[in-house]
Structure formats: C-alpha cells, structure tokens
C-alpha cells in the first residue's frame, strides 16, 4: 500500500507552519523528515496519522495502515512489559507478541514493570508496541531520542526487518538514526509563509 501525501499544509495552534508538502512512501522504503526543531515535524506526522485534520492537501493510502508512536510512548508504568504489549496487540486485533519481544531483545525483561525500565528499554518497548500492531506503515516521532549507540543499532535492525517484511517507515528526527539507506526529506523549504490563521480570516 503506497502512502502518498499531496500538497499538505498543517497548522499548529491555528498558525500555518508547513505547506505544499508532497511525498510518496512505498512498501519497503523508509523516509526521514529532517529539519530544525519547531519546523513542524511532529504536527506533520500527526496530520498524516489522522490525529489532526490538515488545513489543505490530501493523505491517501493511510486508512487503517498506520501505527503511530509519539514522544511519550503511551506505556503504563504499572503494567508489565507483556501486559503492555498484550493490551496493544488485542486493541489491534492480534495476540502474538513473541516476535516483537525477540526483535527488541526484551525477552528477559518480560515480567518487569514498565515503570522500572530504563529510558532506552522503554523506547525499545515503545517500538515493540509498533511491531505488535501489525500495521504496515510505521510513523515514528524522534524514535532514537535518549538511546545509546547499541540501542540505535538495534532500532535500525528492527526497522530494516520491518522494511524487508514489506512495511514502510516515516520518521522525524534531528539526530542520527543509524539508517543510512533511508531517503531524507528536509522540511525547511516547505516552511509556510506567514499568513493569517484560517480561523481568523473572517476577522481580518
């Protein structure tokens, strides 16, 4: 399933920050969105994931295909690793969490409470959550923040495995991801010219 984004404009707090963004993401491909902090990477990802309606432009091929992982990876500290994964698996209608545990080397942390994990382990659990959803398109917001070098390598391997399996990944980051073969799209040229907020047009 090809995810294609045509002439997307997104707003934050009503202010237009990105416009005219277009790209395609075909299976087996990874795309990294680069750009300085605040350029609108997160907002763009949220619009593509359908959490936030874009101001203009279309996102096609995203229906029920997307697994979204934000900064805060939505893990419950009071639940164990398996319970967290089992929950997200059943929410997406699946139940097999073993491959994810293996892929992210979490097998020995199986029964540890998510709250007691280190930042790197938590991030790996967050990514394992993505795998468990069985959704082909991964949307990752700053996936390698607070990860040490080995974890970044582990992350890169997991993404490559996902790509080999026919999945695709859309990532936003301003630090190295360890994914040399990924295509890079710099968002700075798409910065929206300052113009009135859509909701304010009627008043100006």
């Amino acid at each position: 399933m090809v995810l294609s984004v045509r002439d997307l404009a997104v707003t934050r707090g009503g202010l237009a920050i990105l416009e005219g963004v277009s790209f395609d993401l075909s299976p087996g491909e990874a795309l990294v969105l680069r750009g300085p902090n605040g350029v609108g990477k997160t907002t763009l990802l949220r619009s593509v994931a359908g959490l936030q309606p874009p101001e203009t432009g279309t996102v096609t091929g995203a229906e029920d295909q997307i697994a979204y992982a934000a900064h805060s990876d939505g893990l419950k500290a009071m639940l164990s690793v398996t319970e967290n994964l089992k929950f997200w698996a059943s929410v997406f209608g699946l139940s097999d969490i073993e491959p994810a545990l293996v892929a992210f080397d979490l097998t020995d942390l199986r029964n540890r409470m998510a709250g007691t994990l280190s930042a790197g382990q938590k991030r790996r659990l967050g990514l394992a959550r993505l795998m468990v959803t069985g959704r082909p398109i991964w949307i990752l917001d700053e996936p390698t923040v607070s990860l040490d070098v080995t974890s970044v390598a582990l992350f890169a391997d997991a993404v490559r495995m996902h790509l080999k399996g026919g999945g695709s990944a859309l990532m936003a980051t301003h630090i190295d991801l360890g994914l040399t073969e990924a295509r890079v799209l710099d968002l700075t040229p798409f910065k929206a010219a300052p113009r009135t907020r859509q909701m304010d047009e009627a008043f100006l």
Partner: protein
Amino acid sequence: MSLWEYANPVKFIRTTDKVLPWVWALTGICLVTGLVWGFFFTPDDFRQGSTVKIIYIHVPSALMAINAWLMMLVASLIWIVRRHHVSALAARAAAPVGAVMTLIALATGAFWGQPMWGTWWAWDPRLTSFLILFLFYLGYMALWEAIENDDTAADLTSILCLVGSVFAILSRYAVNFWNQGLHQGATLSLDKEENISDVFWFPLLFCIAGFVLLFVALVFLRTQTEIRARRTRALLAREGQA
C-alpha cells in the same frame, strides 16, 4: 442577499452599528412606558395587593431567561453546522445577559412569593428550575473562559449547550415531580379566561417588548465587542508570526 450574509463579521458590525441606536431608543421607550404604566397606573390585585406590580419585571425576565438560552442553542447549532464565527460569538455574548435575566427572575420571584409563602425561598418548582438554568449559564460561561483556542472553545461550548438543554428540560420535569409546586398558574396562556385581565395586560406587553429589545441591543453590542476582541487576537497572532 441571504441571511447568511450577516455571518461575515465585518458586515455584521456595519449593519448593527446602523441599527443599534434605534434599538436602544426603542428599548428605552418600551421599558419606560411599560414600567411606569404598570407601576403607577394599574390598580392593586384584590388578592395579592400591590405585589402584583412585580409581574412587570418577573414575567419578562423569566421569559428572556429561557429565550436567551434558546437563542444560544440555535446559535450553537448554526456554529456546528455552518461554522459561522458570528453565531458562536453571539452565543458567547448572550450568556451573561441570559444569566442576569435569570437572576432577576429568581430575585423578583422570591420577593413576590415572600408575602404569600411566608419565606424568602420555598423551593417552588418553577423558581428552582430557574436556579438550575442559572447553574447552566455559569458552566457555559466558565467553559468559554477556560479554553484559549477560539475555535475549540466554540466547538466545546456548543456541544455543552446542546447537552445542557436536554438536561435542563429533564430537570424542569424532575423538579416538578419532586415538589408539588406553589407557583401561580400561567400568567400568559392562550386560553383567554385563565389570562390576567386586560388592565394588567397592555403594560405587561410593553415590558416584555422592552426586555426583548434590551436583550437584542445588549447581544448586538456584546457580539460586536467579541468580534473586535477576536480581531485583536488575530492581528496580534499575525504580528507575532511575521
């Protein structure tokens, strides 16, 4: 030119500017004639004595308290369906006026009932439902203030208005069920004989017209203010962004 033309804020301000002085003048005339006529030139009621004079403020204010909420309901629906900013801001502008009208209805109801019931507040079903309506007004206004983003605030308050209206009606009947009721029969009802006699009737009409016009004038004025405040925020946002 369809009615939706007035949804454009700038045009709304221009047309209301032309109309407002007349509305204020009419309000003044109706209120003064109605109240003076009712207060000075109507006889006392044989049963209730002079307290019947309170009718000239209690009935119009009670009427406006309910109609203000209905107007807000319609404005909220228009906002949800057609996304016209003016209707959302008009609803926001009308809320305080409706709340004041409810307060007046409550106070005059209590004053009027005091000699009859012997107490200031007798939890009479109709007065109690006005008390509940007042709480709805407070909640509605508080929600507007609590949210920064204008559009989200308009959306959330409209939904609150819809849900609140259903519960206000529910409360209206629940309160009736809960207390057998001391309120006198309907002052204005279609069947003639139950109605009050003519001598009280005409001044009351003027008072009602006066209160309605006062409401309209206040809502126009306050909506203009909301539009201007919104325009200020928009300009500041554009300045901030440039």
